[in-house]
């Protein structure tokens, strides 16, 4: 009777030890997986940080491009305003310029002026379409040298004095 009880106890102890060993192995395996998961999560966090940095960079680029586009629009509007001023300039005596009156009085002189202006305007369109600037256009700094129709795009060295 005592011998049988002893045997059962030994058996239980052995089973317990086996279970314990199996559990330790399982813990070790779990630990390895957890470590692997930790590495993967760290990688994921790192990648997310890179994505956030890229998004920030993109956002800055978008803001910068919008700013540049606004500046360009303003400069082009100034060219348009200048054109309007040319036609409706008020002289010292307060009289508004009338190109019709001028053309009626001096047709050949005005013809020369508007033909030169038309040539300049055509050149402006070529530049707008991507035609490269000539050396003369790039280096023009005086009012007499510039393309008065679109100095903002035709003469980068010219600084208008208002």
């Amino acid at each position: 009777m005592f011998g049988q009880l002893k045997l059962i106890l030994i058996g239980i102890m052995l089973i317990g030890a086996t279970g314990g060993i199996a559990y330790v192995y399982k813990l070790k395996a779990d630990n390895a997986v957890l470590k692997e998961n930790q590495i993967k999560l760290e990688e994921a966090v790192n990648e997310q940080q890179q994505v956030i940095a890229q998004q920030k960079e993109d956002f800055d680029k978008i803001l910068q491009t919008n700013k540049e586009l606004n500046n360009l629009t303003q400069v082009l509007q100034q060219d348009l305003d200048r054109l309007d001023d040319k036609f409706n300039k008020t002289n010292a005596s307060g009289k508004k310029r009338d190109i019709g009156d001028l053309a009626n009085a001096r047709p050949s002189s005005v013809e020369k002026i508007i033909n030169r202006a038309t040539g300049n305007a055509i050149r402006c369109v070529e530049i707008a379409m991507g035609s490269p600037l000539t050396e003369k256009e790039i280096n023009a700094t005086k009012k007499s040298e510039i393309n008065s129709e679109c100095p903002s795009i035709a003469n980068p060295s010219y600084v208008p004095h208002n």
Partner: protein
Amino acid sequence: MKSILNVLVLLTLLTFLITSCSRGVDRIETVKVEVKREPLNLEKPPIPKQEELNWIIINSENAEEVFKKLEEKGTDPVLFGLTDDEYEDLAVNFAQIRNYIIQQNFVIDKYKEYYESEETNGTD
């Protein structure tokens, strides 16, 4: 003695069974799929050559002289006219079209730079 052995075998099996039932930690599986996008790389259209234009100003006094000159040149003695105000409007329209082309070109260049620059080239 035999029944004791049976109990031991059962207990052993039960131990393994219980150990196996406990759920382990799941492995995270991440899959990366890189989709390469070919840059569009469209060439800008060639710049068309602009023809030279020549305005002729005609008023009640010089009309005969102008038409005479046209006939001497062998050109059809006919002119397409604009009033001074319409001429101004035409000049403004022309300038607006030019500005629009400039803005459109700017936008296209910036899109190209944004989506097809070296850093972003090929991936999206």
